[in-house]
């Protein structure tokens, strides 16, 4: 005997369930506004904090190469009504350049390696080997960046400086872009080491996305190509990669976004030198993110708050760069809809 709709107990249950409908609806609606609110809060605070610095530093902020907090123990001067210590002068050009250089070099290195890795994992390796290896590559994406930075500063940096960079510096021809590989190789902290480690950090993002995409390429066109006598290389170049090109581009841009915002590893490996763009690939430098983490503490000793404000301006620039990269990635990836593997970012 089934209960009927007129049965009062059924109605009560019905009401309770409708209330559950409402609870889900409103819960989900409210929750989905929280990220919007949080992001707006972050951006508003950033703009408010950066505003005095934007007013005083002007457009020069993008081109100047100094990072001078000024004499925090000396007099306070006012520019456009904003108080700042005498002698303070901020320019973020070396930071912006360092951020872009490390990230772009990282992507240029990471992309071919990631594609090769994905190809090896999907087409060359037997399944019993490919499965643990791809899991291992994915795991690499999850390692905390401070641990990767530790490895960078303790092991790979000194190794490169002692065994690899001298060879490179002595043997590359002194022409064109190779000139940046000439000169004193330093001690393992600097632009190239940072870029290489960043590259290693974003390879998994690109590789695991690409691997998944490769697996989605239907077998038929590939088999047809092989039947026509295509070699592996030709199948990859003419069939597989064109098939998933937009996905690869999207994953690459996501990787670039991660490299731009990476903080701890770069803070540990870059050499942390403010105020100059490195003349060679081995030179010491720093990035926006690394500068914020290493300077925020001393910025707090500037009683006018101008140092904190200038850091906010640098942060705002980083946020804008990251946003632009992200929007591009989003436009490209929206079709694939896959969430890139997370990577420790700071």
């Amino acid at each position, binding site marked *: 005997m089934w209960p009927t709709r007129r049965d009062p107990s059924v109605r009560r249950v019905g009401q309770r369930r409708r209330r559950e409908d409402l609870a889900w609806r409103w819960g989900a609606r409210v929750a989905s506004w929280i990220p919007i609110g949080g992001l707006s809060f972050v951006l508003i*605070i950033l703009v408010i*904090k950066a505003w005095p610095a934007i007013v005083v530093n002007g457009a020069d902020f993008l081109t100047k190469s100094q990072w001078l907090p000024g004499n925090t123990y000396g007099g306070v001067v006012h520019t456009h009504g904003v*108080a700042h210590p005498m002698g303070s002068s901020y320019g973020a050009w070396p930071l912006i350049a360092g951020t872009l250089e490390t990230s772009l070099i990282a992507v240029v290195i990471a992309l071919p390696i990631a594609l090769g890795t994905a190809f090896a994992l999907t087409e060359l390796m037997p399944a019993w080997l490919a499965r643990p290896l791809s899991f291992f590559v994915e795991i690499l994406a999850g390692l905390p960046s401070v641990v990767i930075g530790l490895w960078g500063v303790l092991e790979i940096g000194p190794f490169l400086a002692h065994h690899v960079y001298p060879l490179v510096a002595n043997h590359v021809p002194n022409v064109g872009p190779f000139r940046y590989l000439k000169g004193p190789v330093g001690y393992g902290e600097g632009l190239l080491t940072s870029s290489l480690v960043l590259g290693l950090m974003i390879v998994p993002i690109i590789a695991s996305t690409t691997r998944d995409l490769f697996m989605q390429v239907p077998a038929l066109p590939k088999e047809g190509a092989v039947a026509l006598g295509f070699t592996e290389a030709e199948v990859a170049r003419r069939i597989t990669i064109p098939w998933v090109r937009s996905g690869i581009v999207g994953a690459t841009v996501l990787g670039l976004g991660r490299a731009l915002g990476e903080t701890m590893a770069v803070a540990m490996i870059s050499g942390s030198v403010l105020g100059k763009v490195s003349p060679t690939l081995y030179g*010491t430098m720093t990035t926006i993110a690394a500068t914020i983490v*290493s300077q925020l503490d001393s910025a*707090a000793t500037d009683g006018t708050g101008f140092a904190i404000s200038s850091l906010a301006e640098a942060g705002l620039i980083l946020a804008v760069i990251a946003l632009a990269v992200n929007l591009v990635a989003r436009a490209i990836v929206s079709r694939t809809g896959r969430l890139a593997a997370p990577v420790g970012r700071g």
Partner: protein
Amino acid sequence: MTLQRLVRVKGRSLATLALVAVATVFATGTVASAAPAKLPKSGIETPPSATLTETGSTLLYPLWNIWAPAYQQKYHQINLTTGGTGSGTGIADAASGTVNIGSSDAYLSPSVKQATPSLLNIPLAISYQVIAYNIPGVHANLNLNGGILAAIYSGSITNWNSPTIAHLNPRVKLPSLPIVALHRSDGSGDTFIFTQYLSDQVSSWAKGPGFGTTISFPTISNALGENGNGGMVSGCQATPGCIAYVGVSFLTQALGDGLGYAALGNGVGQYVLPSPTSAAIEAAGFTKATPANGTISMINGKIKGGYPIINYEYAIVNQHQSSIGFARAVRSLLEWAVNANYGNSNTYLSQVRFVPLPAPVVAQSLKQILTIK
């Protein structure tokens, strides 16, 4: 400032939790004008039960970690949390009232003082700075002075075999080895006193880079930024030819790592090795000049036998604590810390190579401590 306040007001309406926190800070701010507390005969007030938070200077952090268990053993009712986050956040957090004690290697700047007039900088101990270097084969203590250091850091002396260095060190055979000048990448009290020494001895440096917790060091090819004193020592160890300025509490490790350290030219032209004795001589010379609020640089004094880069390590405390209980507990802790029989005895200080405060400075510190309400 108005913008900062704007943010604060906006935020307050966002979170009621914060409202309560802010309200307590503001409400207790009004208890200020009572008479100063009295010191009991023992020299240390008995604290009520409380949880105190200290954060700030990484140079003072090891000392706080030695002090904390000793103090808590005497006064079980206190739970003291220490943190090494950097002088800047120490000062900022003490100013905003979120920690009871901030610690700093540098005294408060006038602008900070202006923003929060109730902030005190109370000398707790004396530290000094060592100029360390890594020259393979050279274990002697080189003679160096502000002129040479300024020339190195601005790139006009780039090799250890420079005749200018040789002239001051006729007995040492210096190799041909490029100099790598290390500086702190994070803002630091060590950079502050080091650059102050350079500014005091070299007028062109005073005009040029000047001094501060973060300065733009002249752009030279062999510069390397290091994070923290630890980074300076381990970076120097890894880099033959380096020169670095490090807080004295790191000297033991620096020596263990095979680094040498210099005798520095002082204000009367003598070359003096850093030691507790020479630092104490310098400190004694500055005692009279130390003002009641403890704000003074003790660099390059005209003091015979004194080591020229020393500084007070400060507790940054807001005069207005959030409750009477907190105020009593903070007073008790600081009274213990500056007391020559307890916190300021060599039992604790020598572990980090700090020097005790001279008695007149202790008296001044105590006066400041007793104004904490």
